[in-house]
C-alpha cells in the first residue's frame, strides 16, 4: 500500500507532466478562456437561436413555432426600414471611417510639432464612454434648443434658419453617421498609423528611387502591405457598426418615423418594449447570415493574400 507521501509525489509528478507536455499544456491554458466563452457567449447565443424559433412572450412559455417569427418579420413594416437603415448606416459610416482613418494616419505619419499631443487628443472620442458623448451630442443637436443651431444661425449667421438635425429623416441619419464617424475615426487612424509605421523604410525608398509619387507609393506599396490589418479593422468595425445600439437608442430612439431604427434597437424595442422576446431574438438572427458572410469573405481575402505573399 502506498504511503500518503508517495501518493502526493505521484500526483505531483502527474500534474508536472501535464504542464510539461506541449500537447496538454495548451488545452490547460486555454480552458479558462474557453469555459468563459462557452458560458458567456456560446450559451446565450444558442439560447437566442432557440428563442427565435419560439413564440416566447414576456411572462409566457416558449412554444416552438418554426419559421413563423421570420415570416412575421418580413411582413412587419419597421423591419424592412431597419434593414435598409442598417445597411446605409454601416456602409456610409465604414467607408468614411476607412477613408478618414487612412488620411489621418498619413498626416500623423509625418513629423510635426505637438504630434504626440494631437495623437492623445485624437483618442478622446474613442475612449469617452458612449453614453456621455451621446448626451453631449444630444445637447448639441437637440430640437428646440440646439447649441449647433445657435452657433450656425444666431452667432455666425451661416444659415438663415435652424438645421433639422434630429427632426428630418435624412438629417437624423446623417447626424447618426457623423457621430459614429467622430467616435470611430480615432480607432481607424491610430491602427492604420501603427501599420504604416511598420512598413519598411527601405521599400518606400526603393519605390521613390523608381519614380513613384507619394500617392502611387501609398496605394501600390504601403496599402498592400497594411491590407491584412486594414481588413481586420474593417471587419471589427463592421460588426460593431451594424450592431450599434447605444447611439441610436440615446440620440434618436429610432426616429423620426423609424428613419434611424437599426437591428439592435428594433430587437430591443420588440423584446423590452413589446414583450415579444421570440420576435426580438429573430431580428438579431437575421443579422447573423450577413455577418457570417462578411467574416468568411474577409478571412478568405486575408488567406489568399498570405498565400500570394
Amino acid at each position: 500500500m502506498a504511503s500518503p507521501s508517495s501518493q502526493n509525489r505521484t500526483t505531483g509528478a502527474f500534474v508536472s507532466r501535464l504542464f510539461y507536455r506541449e500537447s496538454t499544456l495548451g488545452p490547460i491554458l486555454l480552458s479558462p478562456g474557453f469555459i468563459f466563452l462557452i458560458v458567456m457567449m456560446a450559451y446565450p447565443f444558442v439560447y437566442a437561436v432557440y428563442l427565435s424559433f419560439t413564440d416566447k412572450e414576456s411572462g409566457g412559455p416558449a412554444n416552438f413555432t418554426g419559421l413563423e417569427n421570420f415570416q412575421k418579420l418580413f411582413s412587419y413594416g419597421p423591419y424592412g426600414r431597419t434593414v435598409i437603415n442598417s445597411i446605409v448606416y454601416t456602409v456610409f459610416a465604414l467607408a468614411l471611417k476607412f477613408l478618414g482613418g487612412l488620411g489621418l494616419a498619413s498626416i500623423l505619419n509625418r513629423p510635426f510639432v505637438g504630434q504626440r499631443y494631437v495623437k492623445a487628443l485624437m483618442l478622446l472620442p474613442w475612449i469617452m464612454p458612449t453614453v456621455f458623448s451621446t448626451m453631449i451630442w444630444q445637447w448639441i443637436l437637440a430640437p428646440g434648443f440646439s447649441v449647433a443651431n445657435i452657433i450656425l444661425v444666431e452667432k455666425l449667421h451661416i444659415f438663415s434658419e435652424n438645421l433639422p438635425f434630429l427632426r428630418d429623416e435624412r438629417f437624423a441619419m446623417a447626424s447618426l453617421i457623423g457621430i459614429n464617424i467622430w467616435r470611430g475615426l480615432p480607432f481607424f487612424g491610430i491602427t492604420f498609423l501603427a501599420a504604416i509605421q511598420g512598413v519598411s523604410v527601405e521599400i518606400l525608398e526603393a519605390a521613390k528611387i523608381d519614380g513613384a509619387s507619394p500617392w502611387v507609393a501609398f496605394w501600390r506599396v504601403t496599402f498592400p502591405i497594411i491590407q491584412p490589418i486594414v481588413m481586420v479593422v474593417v471587419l471589427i468595425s463592421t460588426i460593431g457598426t451594424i450592431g450599434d445600439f447605444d447611439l441610436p437608442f440615446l440620440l434618436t430612439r429610432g426616429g423620426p418615423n423609424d428613419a434611424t431604427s437599426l437591428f439592435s434597437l428594433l430587437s430591443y424595442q420588440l423584446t423590452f418594449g413589446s414583450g415579444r422576446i421570440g420576435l426580438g431574438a429573430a431580428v438579431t438572427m437575421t443579422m447573423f447570415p450577413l455577418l457570417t458572410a462578411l467574416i468568411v469573405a474577409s478571412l478568405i481575402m486575408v488567406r489568399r493574400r498570405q498565400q500570394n505573399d
Partner: protein
Amino acid sequence: MNQTKRVSRRKLLKAAGLVAIGAGATTLAACAAPAAGPGGSSGPVVLKGATINWLGGAWSFLPELDPVIDAFAKDWGTQNGVTINFTRESTNLGAKIQTAIETGQGANIIQLADAPAQYGKSLADVSTVAEALSAEGGGYLPAGTFQCNDGSRWIAVPLGQHNWFMNYRQDWFKEAGYDKFPDNFDDLLVAGTKLKAAGHPFGWTMGDKAGGDGNAAPYIMLWAFGGKEFNPDGSIALDSKETLAALDYFIKFHKQAGDPDEIAYDDGANNTAFNQGKISLTANVNTIYLPAKKNFPAVAEGMNHAVPPKGPAGRFGACTLPWWGILNKTTGANLDAAKAYIRDFFAIKNLSKFYQAGQGYILPVLPKYETEPIWPSDPKLAIAKEMFKLALPAGYNLKNQSKLSSLMQTKLVVGKMFAAAATSGDPRKALDGALKDISDLKVLA
C-alpha cells in the same frame, strides 16, 4: 409540613389546551389584523421577515417625490418587520422589468407609467387592494379604472395622473392683445400666428421621441376635433373625417404658429425651449414652472397655466397614469407584504403627502381628494384642481386599456401621425401612415 400540590393529568391537559387555544387565537388575530402604517398599531407577525423589492423609475422631473416614498417605506418597513429595497432605473427600466418577469428575481412591486395592459400576463391580481382604496376615496375616476382594470380584475393600482396644462407666456400674450388665454383652437391659431410673427412661436410636442408629452399633447388636439383611436368594441376609429380635420388644423398650426422643431421634441426639449424664451406656449405638467421659479424667475413671473382650448368636439385634457403593480411570481408572505404596503402607502392620509410634494405634478384619481389639503397653494397652479377630473388617457374610448392601444402609445403612433402631416402637408398621407403603423403593431398585440 410541606405539602406538595398534586396536579392531575386531566388538569394538566386542560391547562395545556387553554394555553394552546390562547396562543392560536393570538396568532389568528395577528394574521387577520390589517398591516399598520406609520402611526398605526404594530404590524402582524405574518409580514415579519418578508422582503419587497421595488423597481421603478426615479421621479427625475421632480426629485422631491422620491424622498416621500422612501420615508414612508422606512417607517412602514420598521413597524412591520419588512425589508423594502428600492431600485430606481432611468434608461433601462423596461429591460430590468422584463428580466424580473422572466427570472422571478429582482422585483416584486414595479412602478411604471406605460399602460399596465402590456404586462397583464405577468401582474398579480390586486383587486382587493384597489377596491379597498376605491371605496376609501369615493370610487376611482373612469381614467383610473380604464387604465388598471383589465375588465375582469385589477392588474395594477393607479398611483395618480399626470395632467398636461397649457403652459403659456401670459406677458407675451398680453403684448399681443390677449388678456385671457384663447378658449378655442381657432382663436389659439390666430394668437399663435401673431406671436410667431413677434418671434415667440408655440411648441406643441408631436413626433415619436417624447414618451410622456408625446402621449398627451397630440391627443388634446385629436380628441378636440372629434378624432378617436378606437371604437368601444376595439376596432380602429382613427380613419375619420374628424382625424383629418385635426391633422389639417395642425398643418396650419405648425406653419403659422409653431416652432419648426416641435415635431422632434423629446420630453425635455419643450421645457428647455420654454425656459430659454424660445417658445410662448407648450403642453406640459408643472415641470416648466417649478424649476423656472428657482432658475428662471423672469419666465416664472411671465408665465401661467390654462386648461386646453375647446375644439369642435369639446374640451379635452390628456393624462398618463403611473401605477404600481405586483409581479405574479411574488408569493407567500412577500405577496401579502407587497399588497399591504401598497394598501397602506396609497391610503389617503399617506398618499396625500406625495401629492402635496408634487404641487400638481401628479394628481389623484379618487374624487375624495378634492376636499383634501393636497392642492397647490400657488395661484398659478390652481389649474390642477380644475384639470384632474377633465383629463383622459390615450385609448379612453375603449372599455379597458388594450395591449394594442398600449403599443400605439409606446410607438407614439398618434404623435408621429401629426408630425408626418406637418412634414408632408398631406393629412391623408399621414393618416394612412398611422393606419399602416397600427396594422404593423397588430402583429405584436
